[in-house]
């Protein structure tokens, strides 16, 4: 009843191929836009805005990783290293050359993509597990290089402070302004990825994931397209790093460790491999999970145990939940939160006439 697919006739190729084909999709997008751009900023406090900004930044990273992992089927455990490449590039250009953010952001992304190509060339020739290990090595190597090269890292402290982004002379430094800043790029990333996966390049990547030998036979240069996927994924990672830098006002490599890489892998897997909604849901879930666990434990905990022990137990439970949820999703719902969402949506698609 909410959603009818009958009665809408498409009379042109463009209409058939449109991303938002049905009115319900258009309504949903308008609704979400209103929600996140108007309603939330009006009613949410700084705390919620900053959390949503963090989620927005991770959405970009998760989308990048999903392009590589979900659509091309390549495992990368070095995602965080490319973020730090992007972060330091942008920070260096911003501080040393005084470039504004709309130049340093693409520069950061491009540098990360370049490094991604460098890492990809030796590792993409071998299949499966070896790429994972090669990107793990890349993670450590890049961390080491940044740590030990004062020219990149900005000195002994290996942290570079940057000024907040300036838009047409307007300094963006309140939670609200940074929120809009981040959401803009998150939306841009979502739109870009949606278009990418529907394009020729996207179809080639999916072909490689499903049957790479067959793809090679029908003329898709597997190595070349894998390299593209890696470069694009690294570009997204670089942009994520730059966004973190501008959001926090500082670039530190200690923020982009192997644990961060694994967080992003978890986002893609729990959210759903090979789906954009999945990346967004995964980003929300993983970023907000620690907060949710803490809130639940703080409310419920004092009834069960000594408040003094609580903080330690919260932390350990959080780790156990995180790991347990990953395993649970893998065992029970391999397609992640996206599948859960699709189940709900499909139910309402034909409601109340589900027979």
């Amino acid at each position, binding site marked *: 009843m909410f959603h009818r697919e009958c009665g809408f006739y498409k009379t042109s190729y463009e209409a058939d191929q449109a991303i938002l084909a049905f009115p319900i999709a258009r309504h949903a997008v308008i609704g979400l836009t209103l929600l996140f751009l108007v309603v939330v900023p009006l009613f949410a406090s700084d705390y919620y805005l900053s959390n949503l900004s963090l989620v927005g930044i991770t959405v970009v990273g998760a989308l990048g990783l999903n392009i590589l*992992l979900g659509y091309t*089927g390549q*495992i990368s455990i070095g995602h965080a290293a490319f973020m730090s490449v992007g972060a330091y590039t942008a920070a260096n250009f911003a501080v040393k050359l005084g470039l504004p953010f709309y130049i340093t952001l693409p520069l950061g992304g491009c540098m990360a993509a370049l490094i991604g190509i460098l890492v990809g060339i*030796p*590792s*993409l*020739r*071998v*299949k*499966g*597990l*070896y790429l*994972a*290990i*090669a990107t*793990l*090595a*890349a993670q*450590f*190597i890049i961390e*080491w290089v940044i*740590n*030990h090269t004062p020219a990149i890292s900005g000195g002994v402290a290996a942290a570079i402070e940057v000024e907040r982004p300036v838009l047409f002379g307007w300094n963006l430094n309140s939670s609200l302004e940074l929120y809009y800043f981040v959401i803009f790029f998150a939306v841009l990333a979502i739109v870009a990825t949606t278009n990418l996966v529907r394009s020729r390049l996207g179809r080639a990547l999916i072909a490689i994931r499903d049957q*790479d030998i067959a793809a*090679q036979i029908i003329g898709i240069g*597997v*190595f070349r397209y*894998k390299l593209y996927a890696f470069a694009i994924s690294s570009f997204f990672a670089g942009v994520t790093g730059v966004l973190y830098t501008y959001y926090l006002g500082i670039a530190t490599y200690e923020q982009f460790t192997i644990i961060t890489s*694994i967080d992003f*892998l*978890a986002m893609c*897997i729990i959210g759903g*491999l090979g789906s954009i909604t999945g990346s967004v849901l995964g980003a929300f879930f993983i970023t907000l999970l620690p907060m949710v666990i803490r809130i639940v434990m703080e409310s419920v905990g004092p009834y069960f145990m000594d408040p003094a022990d609580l903080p*330690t*137990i919260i*932390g*350990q*439970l*959080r*780790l*156990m*939940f*995180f*790991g*347990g*949820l*990953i*395993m649970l999703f*893998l*065992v029970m719902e*391999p397609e992640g939160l996206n599948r859960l969402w699709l189940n709900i949506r499909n139910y309402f698609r034909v409601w109340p006439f589900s027979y």
Partner: protein
Amino acid sequence: MHPELEFGIALAAEGVLTGLMYSLIALGFVLIYKSTDAINFAQGHFVMIAAIVVAGALDWWGVPLFIAILIGLAFMIAFGIGLERFVLRPMIGRPIVAIIMATIGLSFFLLGFGPLVFGPAPTTINLPIPDSPIFWGPLYLKPIGLVGAGVSIAFLLGFGWFFIKSRAGVAMRAVADSHQVSMAMGINVERFFAVAWVTAGVVALLGGLLWGNMIGVDTQLALIGLKVFPVVILGGLDSIPGVVVGGIIVGVVEALTSGFVDPVVGGGMKDFAPYVLMILMLMIRPFGIFGRRQIERI
């Protein structure tokens, strides 16, 4: 003898002993890969949880070392069986990403579980091994290193024999090659999976005892698992002699880098050198020095 050369030899000896202790950890990884084709990213965490259980038994119940080791053994066996039954059996036939992520999830779970049950404070396992070094010409050997190396070699020889000569070993290799054909031949695939994971757990227990004695027992002990990857890539993911050779190479490279390259570069190359070697190996010969499988190249 020239002092630098003497120093270099001492360093190399140290590297060999440490490398063999890495091999012990990598052995668990290779066992699992050889038997079930699964990549265990949580091998370091197995070592950690085994050490935590033993140290916990020692600290809390004050039992003698021998009993604590038995408790640890019982725990790791139960853990291996439970793991296979509840987490890995549903994942048979799933793509490699899924299994890797499952072990990563497991590693987080263990990181929380250990301190939750046994407390976060670091502790140690006191083994009846003397601390003072043995001097032998220019060499300078730590007893714990010698014990570790000895245990490693013993296990490596034992498993080498097991996989080639014994019936069960051959069956496990068959299972690794193809689950379906093995089942058709009447091999109980699931039971051998459980055996593989339990064995890896037992090896992890030994690693936990030795490394726990060397560097103390707490959640940081899991980081030793990161050393596994250079070792198995260099030696070959499914090769037992490869684990020995890979371990020795990694240990010696680390030690020599620390002694001769670090002072020039200003530090830190020690942990990084094996990864560089690993990347080179991946480019030239991805299946390692002794690896058997052919890698599909694009």
